């Protein structure tokens, strides 16, 4: 029965082909007809990216076992399917989009590859947003031990993680902001290192104290990375970077294999009162109540051999200064150095259109 109905449909269609194929209504659509115009709902922007512990990421990079002597180790990039991303993903955390200190919307639990997505915040180029990684009540476990068991993979030390905000705001101009990178830190890395140093300097401090608004005006962790050759997703610490802050106490963060000497954090980090870090990693601790903008400036003290040709490797790099408004708690920022050597500008060269990277919302 169904077949015969279909057959009828075929026959009918054939008949209609002859009757209607030359209909005068078959003309071209009228260009310019504005029947597509309508009122649209409020424009929303999806925001998505990864949430990871940058300190655990570096720990994974430095401790990754040699599986095949002939194969290069996985690169320290925030790319898909890089083991270090899985080993440092904030699995189970939620990422909130913040505006004026309040939460606009939050993601679901962060996936094993660090991925999260917030489905809609108001679009616009005027409104500044920040992100905050909220660890779950049960805490975060780094290292993805199910995927990377020990041995041969070095377990990532346990830590208590703190809600961590991004220090660099973004605007949601386009309808999607992709690959937003949100860091989360705990008490096994730089915060522990700073607390230890401050204690040694006569200011008894715990990592929890540093994020306690009664004790400090907040901690800004800023990690300077080498110039990135693909988006801003290379995650290679920049060595020989000096920093200076316009306010607050600045500490240079260093790293050595855990357990090498007293005062190291469980992840191997330690702090110094020096201005230069061989990791390009700095912590700035603000006094309680401080809300005035603070500028942290950087100088690349590194050198490169004269024969170096890659603009990404020629030192010194330019490192833009970073201005932030202190907030209680802990915030994290990734800052990429910029090559100081650019190809000479050729006024006669016809330019290729630059790709639209607006979706990065940087």
């Amino acid at each position, binding site marked *: 029965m169904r077949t015969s109905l279909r057959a009828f449909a075929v026959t009918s269609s054939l008949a209609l082909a002859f009757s209607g194929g030359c209909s005068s209504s078959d003309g071209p659509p009228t260009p310019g007809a504005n029947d*597509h115009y309508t009122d649209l709902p409020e424009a929303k922007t*999806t925001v998505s990216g990864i949430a990871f512990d940058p300190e655990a990421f570096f720990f994974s990079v430095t401790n990754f076992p040699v599986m095949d002597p002939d194969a290069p180790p996985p690169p320290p990039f925030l790319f898909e399917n890089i083991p270090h991303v899985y080993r440092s993903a904030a699995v189970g955390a939620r990422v909130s989009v913040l505006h004026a200190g309040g939460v606009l919307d939050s993601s679901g639990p962060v996936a094993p590859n660090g991925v999260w997505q917030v489905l809609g915040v108001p679009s616009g180029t005027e409104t500044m947003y920040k992100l905050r990684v909220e660890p779950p009540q049960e805490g975060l476990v780094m290292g993805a031990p199910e995927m990377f068991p020990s041995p041969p993979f070095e377990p990532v030390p346990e830590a208590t993680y703190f809600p961590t905000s991004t220090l660099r705001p973004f605007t949601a101009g386009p309808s999607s902001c992709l690959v937003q990178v949100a860091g989360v830190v705990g008490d096994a890395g730089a915060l522990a290192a700073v607390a230890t140093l401050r204690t040694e300097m006569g200011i008894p401090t715990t990592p929890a104290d540093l994020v306690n608004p009664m004790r400090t005006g907040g901690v800004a962790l800023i990690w300077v990375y080498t110039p990135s050759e693909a988006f801003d997703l290379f995650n290679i610490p920049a060595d020989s970077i000096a920093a200076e802050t316009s306010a607050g106490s600045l500490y240079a963060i260093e790293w050595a294999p855990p357990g090498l000497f007293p005062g190291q954090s469980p992840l191997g980090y330690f702090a110094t009162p020096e201005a230069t870090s061989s990791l390009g990693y700095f912590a700035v601790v603000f006094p309680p109540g401080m809300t005035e903008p603070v500028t942290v400036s950087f100088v690349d003290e590194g050198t490169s051999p004269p024969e170096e040709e890659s603009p990404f490797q020629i030192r010194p790099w330019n490192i833009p200064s970073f201005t932030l408004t202190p907030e209680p708690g802990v915030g994290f920022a990734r800052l990429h150095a910029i090559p100081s050597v650019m190809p000479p500008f050729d006024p006669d060269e016809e330019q290729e259109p630059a790709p639209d990277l607006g979706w990065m919302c940087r």
Partner: protein
Amino acid sequence: MKKPLALLLCLSSWVLGSGCNLFDVSDAEGTRGRGARAFDPYSSSASGAISLSLLAFNGCAILPNGEPVALGDVNLPDGAYPDVCTRLNDGAPLGPPSPPFARLNVTPGTVYFLREITLVDTVFGQHTQFNDRQAPATWARRQSRFKSLDWSGLTIGQETWRDRGGGSFQRETYFENAAWMISNNDSFQVEVLDSDGNVRASQTYLRRDFLAENATTGRTRVSWTVDGLERPRFPDDPEPQPPGVEPIYQTVVKVSVANATNPFKSITMPDLSGDGVIRVTWSLMPSEPFYFPVTFVPEQERPATCFRLGADGLATDERVPCGFGLEQAVRIRTPQNGRYFMPGETVDFMVSLRDGDGNGLHSRDLLPTFNDYMNGESNGLAYFNDYMIFTYRDTSSSESGFKVVGPLQDLRVANGTYQLPYFSYPGTSEPRFFVEPGLPSLLPGYADSQPPARYAVTLPPDAKAGTYAIVVKGHRSYMGERLNRLDPFFFQVGQEQVTKYPERIGNCQVCHNGTNSLSNLHHGMAVDHVELCKTCHFEQAVGQVADIVHRIHASSRKYSQNRADCTLCHLTRESTLRPSLMSCNGCHVQSHGTEYYDLYFAAMHVTPNAYGNCANACHAETPPKQHLLPPL
């Protein structure tokens, strides 16, 4: 006997009664709304039959997203269908074979017709001697899955160097004219088997029933490619450049015929449930049928994964089962003055992709993720899949997105420049893809992020007045149906008065009508808008419009017109008088030999190059008499 006679009489009366001039081609082909009335089989549910695409890769059936199909619970002779398949989505080189898991669903009781059958056998890294063109040909003739074909008469055909962008080139050596390639009397017998292997339905298609089998459109080819090269130093450079870099070698035999011209040859999917298989027996390989495992999913068992549309034409939250087909719509936010956009104003619009029954294929604000597409959970919506293009050698496969161009009256061919004579967003040849190529496998989270259905494009402060177009490109595969759509949606800038295309080329409908209409071919764009092609196809990396259109028709076995008669497609004399290596070589392969060899390798935007106006005295002021040009 009485019924057919009555039908014929009835049809005659309709024809005579309609009062139309069958030879009047001045009316447009229209868009898919025309379909049902003209028995457009590509109109999905509104037509009498559903188009069926059958694809195979290295011995396994695949879905249009490239995933290999598992046999399921079907009794076939031992070895008829492999237990493991190579995944083309592994990229190059291909990974080791693994058990397939995808399912090709079809709807029992539905009338289908075979739109496309594409069979690919390919190897990577096997023929790596840069100058040995014999080895890949020998592989095709003696070792490939198509070795039993009649390969007599095989020759080395054209050898092309294609600019892949960024200074990277692909050399492709074509092998042509084997007996099976030029055969026109062969056929494909399509049989639907139940799970016990019993034939439950059958239909035979002649090869000449299909319109498209041209390599330029991604169809039949036997070729050997060397990819990732720098330009050769000189003609017949025997060394791959740059020295020391190992290029990617691919050898492929692709048999692909598409676009049935006789949709009345249909086949009704038997009323079965569970698994079955479609067996295709090519008369040129009678003892080696191709198997396409299917799962029969009754219409009433389709899950409610689509969305009912609201009065505003946008998806509501109510879920409904999906139907066949792909329709595209756009809703543009009303301009500030209510009538037209002003230069500098932002055009804010929402894309609404629907099935042929008017159900939304996605939620109001968001599209499915790339991983939804790869996992078969996108209601059939497809995104740019690099491997379907680079490994499977399709040329319009899954790349969905949009472009905004205008005003229409300024849409002229750009020759060797990114300084386009009209506004275009993006300014590149590629559109703004909903999912950008290459990024899902690179950027963390990209493949799991839902792309928006809403976009905003800001017009330049000096935008010229006229009619602009949002050109939406969509792909969908669902229940065996694989469709491409390219639709313009218009808005006004600076004035209410409508402007038109330059009308320099056209007439495609003289040949491309009915089932062969451009609406049903390749990208699926109606002939009314053929002057939009150039807005993407202005560089070789994606095919330059003059080159590919000439190339397709010059090498087509189906093109029956006088190839020297330019007046068929060129409506103005001016449009024929811009000779360049790029536009002439589509027909006249290497018309100047190696005389202007370097120009082929100059970047598109670097003058001089192959896009430049050449030999004005010879080809423009006194054009070759062999060409019939539009009058002065």
